[in-house]
């Protein structure tokens, strides 16, 4: 069993998807147990694998024993760089699966099995992207995750959702194709698709790594990934896609898709081309950091202009992507920027998850789509509010949340790499975040008409009047949501704080992976 962990991580949800497809149509009730079981298997396997990685070193796994990097033998690799990400992904998908319980039952009554099939396949794609050691397989898995996410976005009843999904598809496919072209050039130059082999050849052969073709390859790959991660100004598809899709879809896509793409970028930078080559040979560091600065500032401004909660959160994702891209490219001597980016992948995934879960709950329980609908929120659902506040403080960067520490490391990297423009952008965006969220808190606390709360203590009843939302059942309103929604929300909020408090050990693991770069990229002995 222990040897097969990498395969189990990916295959469990895949078989789960098959079972759901086979059995789900007969009886919708079997869907969730299958989904949950397969995701739990993935989670346990990733935790076990991570433990193994950090005690004994990287795990290389060759599907069906095709050891040689000939052709397209499937090489899975778990090392210090992606072990944490795997755990993160599996934690998020398990949490969101709880959230899906009620949603899937209500909104897609006829489509429950289809929804879960897509959900599980998305997990396969995301886990696969993180775990694969092969540049072409990465493309396939990116497309697996993208195709399923087009489906998940389009699943809702909103007309805008369909339109957004098609736009997302067009942009996403173009992005993936760019990536594929880049991989083609790399293959042309090195004759292999295995990331480690490519890296070894580029390291060993200055003529190849110095050629224009490799730079073009890198450019195409970078462009492709940037489209996938919605790096400003290539973000056009994201806000509509994530805000007009069903809440559960948003909760799974928003935290993971962009973050996994950031991981891919870092993996490509470190694992294929090599940090040295990217930072020293190319010397694009300043350019990309400036692009990131623009992304952060523009995203912040766009977020300020939004009235809808989810739209605002979507633009915040664009901002956070700017953080991570900029951080990864800071090129400071001790790689604190890369550290910060990798840590921020974890932190931001959790914060985004928490915020989108909360937004989903607001939409359902209060019918709140726009910020102004959140009147009296703190009294109506105190627990949900607490989680929402924690995530918001994380986005602002208040200690001891994870968001503060990721900023700490990013700014440290920026100072050591003398990228003051990035420091300024990060701080400005923190301030904008503060404005954004306190605008919400104000409305939640004061209401839209001031002085509305004046009066006696503890009056809940008079506030539970029916909202204009789509969900008509007034008995559901004005109270906390069901445990299935509350549990993932509170868990993610707790993780945000724990991740912050115990940032030391986690960052130590990340540092280890960055300090032992050679071990990440070394060719396996054959």
């Amino acid at each position, binding site marked *: 069993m222990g040897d097969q962990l990498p395969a189990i991580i990916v295959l469990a949800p895949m078989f789960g998807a098959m079972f759901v497809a086979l059995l789900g149509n007969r009886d919708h009730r079997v869907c969730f147990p299958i989904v949950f079981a397969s995701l739990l298997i993935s989670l346990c396997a990733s935790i076990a694998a991570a433990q193994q990685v950090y005690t004994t070193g990287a795990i290389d796994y060759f599907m069906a024993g095709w050891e040689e990097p000939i052709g397209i033998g499937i090489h899975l690799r778990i090392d210090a760089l992606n072990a944490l990400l795997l755990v993160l992904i599996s934690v998020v998908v398990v949490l969101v699966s709880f959230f899906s319980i009620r949603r899937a039952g209500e909104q897609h009554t006829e489509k429950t099995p289809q929804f879960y099939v897509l959900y599980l396949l998305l997990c396969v794609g995301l886990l696969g992207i993180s775990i694969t050691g092969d540049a*072409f397989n990465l*493309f396939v898995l990116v497309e697996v995750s993208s195709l399923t996410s087009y489906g998940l976005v389009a699943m809702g009843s909103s*007309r805008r959702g*369909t*339109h957004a999904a098609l736009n997302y598809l067009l942009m996403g496919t173009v992005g993936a194709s760019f990536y594929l*072209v880049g991989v083609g050039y790399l293959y042309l130059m090195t004759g292999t698709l295995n990331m480690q082999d490519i890296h070894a050849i580029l390291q060993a052969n200055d*003529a190849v790594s110095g050629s224009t073709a490799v730079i073009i390859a890198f450019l195409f790959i970078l462009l492709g990934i940037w489209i996938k991660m919605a790096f400003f100004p290539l973000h056009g598809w994201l806000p509509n896609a994530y805000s007009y899709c069903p809440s559960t879809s948003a909760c799974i896509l928003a935290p993971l898709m962009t973050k996994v793409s950031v991981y891919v970028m870092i993996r490509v930078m470190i694992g294929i081309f090599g940090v040295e080559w990217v930072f020293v040979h190319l010397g694009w560091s300043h350019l990309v950091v400036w692009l990131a600065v623009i992304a952060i500032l523009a995203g912040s401004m766009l977020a300020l202009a939004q009235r809808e909660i989810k739209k605002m959160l979507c633009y915040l994702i664009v901002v956070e992507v700017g953080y991570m891209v900029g951080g990864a490219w800071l090129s400071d001597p001790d790689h604190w920027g890369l550290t910060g980016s990798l840590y921020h992948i974890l932190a931001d995934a959790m914060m985004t998850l928490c915020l989108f879960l909360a937004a989903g709950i607001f939409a359902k329980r209060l019918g709140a789509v726009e910020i102004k609908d959140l009147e009296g929120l703190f009294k109506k659902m105190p627990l949900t509010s607490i989680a929402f506040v924690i995530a918001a403080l994380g986005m602002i960067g208040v200690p001891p949340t994870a968001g503060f520490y990721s900023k700490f490391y990013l700014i440290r990297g920026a100072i050591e790499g003398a990228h003051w423009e990035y420091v300024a952008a990060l701080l400005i965006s923190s301030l904008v975040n503060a404005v954004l969220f306190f605008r919400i808190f104000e409305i939640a606390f004061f209401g839209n008409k001031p002085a509305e709360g004046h009066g006696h203590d503890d009056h809940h009843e008079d506030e539970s009047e029916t909202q204009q939302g789509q969900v008509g059942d007034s008995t559901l309103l004005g109270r906390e949501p069901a445990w299935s929604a509350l549990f993932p929300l509170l868990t993610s909020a707790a993780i945000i704080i724990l991740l912050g408090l115990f940032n030391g050990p986690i960052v130590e693991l990340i540092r280890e992976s960055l300090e032992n770069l050679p071990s990440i990229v070394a060719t396996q002995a054959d």
Partner: protein
Amino acid sequence: MADFFQNTLHDHFNYWVYVILMMIGLWAVIAKNNFIKKLIGLSIFQTAIILFYVSIGVKVDASIPILHHHEEPAAHAEGHDKGHKADYAVGEKDDSAPAAHDNHDSHESQESHGDHDHHADAHAVNPDLIANPLPHVLMLTAIVVGVATLGVALALSQRIYKEFGTLEESELLEQLKGGNVDG
């Protein structure tokens, strides 16, 4: 000028075609108003990439990559070794650098050979005689992915047509702007 035609256009003819097709496709995706036309553009775009990959794998006078163990296709070999002038990107062997156009080619392929020599020895095949199957295999996968994407895209377009009664993006945006969003 003649050199230009010979070296840049003629020798890289299919690469030029791939670039032009790719640009046409991308232009259609971005500029066309009709969703179906956008999707056609997308298909052209993807097909261009397939052309690119297939071009990587081409080798003049090479045979199909089916290995007969210990059975050198001798007749072929001699004639080929002399006459072979890599017109197109040619894979030296199935898993080594097909970077035939680079000046440092010989040096590099030497290296790559070194890396995986035992593999070549084990089968004792002359890689010049065998077309590189890998790009084709990759493209089979890419085609499948492309077909799946197109399928999803067409399904979405169909739904858009049902919901909006149009496939023109401008009309659709107009409807969305005019309120009454989720009918």
